[in-house]
């Protein structure tokens, strides 16, 4: 670890901290339908959209109506994306490479993936998706799924702040305002900034470049014998990339236009864009803490949640950076230039799978940030991390991605933990638990626990089945604990709607495309429903005045207790699985065995 590395990590956090308040105050005004400086441009667009779709913007929805509207919207857009993928070859528009229809299992997996804000990619985008599919099928979902998550978080916050109310707002209005006022304006600016740094934005066919040095590539032929081919040219993929990159990060989507994702120089051209992209991931979730404080009338509570998130973020980045800054112990005694332990060559550490232009600190930070949130974009390959370094992204997702978290999803996930924390605190002092003056009762805790239990159930269930079936093991590239981690990571990433891959596992099989798609849908919608039910129930309650027995939710003690509950309830659920995966791999690596 170096001072320079820590300085860059500190700069990143300070930027997030500085942006949280203005971003949060702006978002609160948007969702409270108060005046903003963008109104002259956007209000006419908003009114036109409501007129065309027949939405009554003043109609309020109960939690069940809000939930069903969200489900109908998600179902319709999933089916549209599936159809577009299957028909892309027949649409004579923005398909200069004449790419074929996307295979059925893959098309369904991708449609489920982008609808749920997961953006897991079992395919190589530049070889599979036409420009039209990328824009109309995938980038649109980047906006919609993010705006849906934000709307749901706002609905939960309304549930906390409203008293004796039956409704949580209007899903269609929240979806529209989140897209028009928050996501679109920031993405326009961000896209142009990315282009200024070298990200591409065009509709050209792919370029072909002649290699300076010919390459001999050996592959296995159809008869099983090795066949060597001399490669003299390289295809350089093109496309409308910058516009998709902006929302990919801001919406914590993470699905890359290119297979290499944010390690590709067209997606992430410079260290400055690397900082911008990480900042984009956290800016809305950090602002949501301020929205929470503002809309509930308890700014201190919002900052207490922010503090709990920051503590967990710091612990994650510290561990990941420390683990990656160590050279691989198996490389001791070999050429130190290869081991990268010489200070004259590099600060030392594990550079496998990392971009030299980003280095260890920014790779560890990116990996932590992208999995703290439900983004899933990568600028380095998590599969190549040291066992404990690779465990951190996994643990981040396993905690429920509540460390700032996905846009909206991070906040409502954290609020479920808050409800459980308040409940446990109430048990400790022997009083009926209260959350900002509202009594937390059996129904709230039952549904909060349902939310928390579905997540490990779907991850561990599918992982257990996959390690027992030939279909689950046949596409692994590593065996032993590393292979288990690859499978565990795939289902964790899918259930958490993260979408980052541990690599090494070829998930483009019927088994993985189908089961990962189911995992994504369950991880998104089967958790949202009980969350909305808690919100709807909280909204109906009276707000009791604070008394001496009230547990303050704006204190340091509350933040620390919240961290404790997250670690005990969230992370410890997965400890046995982690001990068989990355922890065992770490110990075996120290003993001289690798997989």
């Amino acid at each position, binding site marked *: 670890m170096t001072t320079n590395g820590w300085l860059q990590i500190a700069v990143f956090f300070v930027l997030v901290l500085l942006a949280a308040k203005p971003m949060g105050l702006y978002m609160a005004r948007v969702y409270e339908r108060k005046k903003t400086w963008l109104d002259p441009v956007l209000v006419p667009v908003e009114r036109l959209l409501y007129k065309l779709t027949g939405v009554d913007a003043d109609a309020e929805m109960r939690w069940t109506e809000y939930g069903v509207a969200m*489900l109908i919207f998600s179902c319709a857009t999933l089916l549209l994306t*599936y159809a577009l993928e299957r028909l892309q070859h027949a649409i004579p528009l923005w398909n200069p490479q004449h790419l074929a229809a996307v295979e059925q299992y893959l098309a369904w997996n991708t449609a489920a993936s982008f609808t749920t804000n997961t953006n897991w990619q079992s395919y190589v985008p530049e070889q599979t998706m036409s420009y039209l599919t990328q824009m109309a099928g995938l980038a649109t979902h980047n906006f919609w799924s993010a705006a849906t998550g934000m709307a749901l978080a706002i609905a939960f916050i309304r549930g906390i702040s409203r008293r004796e109310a039956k409704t949580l707002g209007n899903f269609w209005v929240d979806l529209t305002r989140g897209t028009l006022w928050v996501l679109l304006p920031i993405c326009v600016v961000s896209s142009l900034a990315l282009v200024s740094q070298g990200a591409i934005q065009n509709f050209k066919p792919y370029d072909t470049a002649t290699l300076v040095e010919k390459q001999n590539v050996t592959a296995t032929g159809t008869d099983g014998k090795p066949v060597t081919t001399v490669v003299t040219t390289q295809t350089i993929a093109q496309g409308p990339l910058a516009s998709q990159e902006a929302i990919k990060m801001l919406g914590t989507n993470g699905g890359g236009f290119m297979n290499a994702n944010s390690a590709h120089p067209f997606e992430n051209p410079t260290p400055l864009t690397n900082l911008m992209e990480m900042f984009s991931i956290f800016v809305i979730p950090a602002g949501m803490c301020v929205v929470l404080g503002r809309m509930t009338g308890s700014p201190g509570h919002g900052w207490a949640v922010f503090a709990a998130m920051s503590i967990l973020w710091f612990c994650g980045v510290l561990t990941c950076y420390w683990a990656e800054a160590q050279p691989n112990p198996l490389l001791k005694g070999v050429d130190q230039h290869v081991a990268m332990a010489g200070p004259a060559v590099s600060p030392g550490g594990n550079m496998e799978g990392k971009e030299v232009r980003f280095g260890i600190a920014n790779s560890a930070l990116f990996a932590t940030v992208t999995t703290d949130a439900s983004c899933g974009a990568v600028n380095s390959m998590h599969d190549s991390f040291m066992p404990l370094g690779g465990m951190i992204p996994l643990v981040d997702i396993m905690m429920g991605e509540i460390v700032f978290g996905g846009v909206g999803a991070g906040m409502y996930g954290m609020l479920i933990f808050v409800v459980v924390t308040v409940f446990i605190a109430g048990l400790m002092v022997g009083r*009926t*638990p209260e959350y900002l003056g509202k009594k937390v009762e*059996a*129904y709230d805790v039952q549904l909060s626990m349902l939310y928390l239990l579905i997540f490990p159930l779907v991850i561990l269930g599918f992982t257990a089945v996959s390690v027992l079936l030939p279909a689950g093991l046949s596409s692994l590239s590593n065996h032993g604990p590393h292979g288990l981690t690859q499978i565990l990571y795939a289902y964790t990433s899918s259930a958490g709607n993260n979408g980052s891959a541990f690599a090494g596992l070829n998930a483009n099989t019927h088994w993985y495309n189908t089961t990962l798609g*189911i995992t994504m849908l369950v991880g998104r*919608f*089967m958790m949202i429903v*009980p969350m909305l039910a808690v919100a709807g129930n909280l909204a109906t309650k009276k707000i009791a005045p604070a008394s001496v027995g009230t547990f303050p939710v704006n204190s340091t003690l509350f933040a620390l207790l919240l961290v404790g509950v997250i670690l005990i309830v969230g992370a410890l659920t997965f400890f046995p699985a982690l001990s068989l995966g990355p922890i065992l791999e770490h110990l075996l690596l120290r003993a001289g065995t690798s997989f």
Partner: protein
Amino acid sequence: MSDIAFFAGSIVFFLVAVLYVHGCQSLKGGGGHA
């Protein structure tokens, strides 16, 4: 599997999710007291 199977499967999932909404709502009636 055919396209129709994926279409139908997706719709069935969301129909189950709608039933799940009503299941969570009805759970309130049977809840105990804190």
